[in-house]
């Protein structure tokens, strides 16, 4: 049987890649942000897995900080999205071309 650690690690890498691919391919700002959160979820799983494998607490604390920071980021990000929607009428990333990307 495969040991648990590689399974968890595989899940974390899969989540991270799904998130990264989505963040690059999707055009809706909120969906892109959700994809970034999926990346962070993958990272958290990796941290917890390694924390268990290494018998150290650092990884678990890192996950706590990742969660708290992700919440703060979400608050700021959604505020920016709402502002953009009110001023621009859309949060489609392709439509933001006041400046060249």
């Amino acid at each position, binding site marked *: 049987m495969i040991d648990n650690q590689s399974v968890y690690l595989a899940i974390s890498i899969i989540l991270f890649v799904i998130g990264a691919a989505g963040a690059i391919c999707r055009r809706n700002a909120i969906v892109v942000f959700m994809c970034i959160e999926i990346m962070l979820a993958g990272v958290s799983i990796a941290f917890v897995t390694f924390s268990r494998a290494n018998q150290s607490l650092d990884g678990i*604390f890192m996950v*706590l900080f990742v*969660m*708290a920071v992700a*919440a*703060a980021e*979400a*608050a700021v990000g*959604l*505020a920016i999205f*709402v502002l953009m929607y009110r001023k621009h009428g859309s949060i489609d990333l392709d439509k933001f071309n006041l400046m060249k990307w």
Partner: protein
Amino acid sequence: MLRDYVPVMLMMLVGAGFGVVAVVLSSALGPKRRSRVKKETYECGMTTQGATYAPTPIKYYVVALLFLVFDLECVFMYPWAVHYKSLGVFGFVEMVIFMVVLFVCYVYVWKKGALEWE
């Protein structure tokens, strides 16, 4: 060890197969008559009203965000509470500082009027 699960697997296969067969058979054999009324969204037998995208008042959004941020700060209190005794004065002072910072932000939010409903 895996052998113990064979009945469960069989059960799942039969269950899934029954569902698939029933759906496929009924769509293959049943008569199809489409009309406008039939295509409408089913909503408790009532006629549907309004657009699907109903705007939600912005108040919900501010309160939800504030809740999210303040709620997640609790995450730091669990490990602190579990290890309260061994952390001693250092832990207590640190948590007091943390709470003071949170409290300042709370006062700010309050005075800004973000908590007023009407």
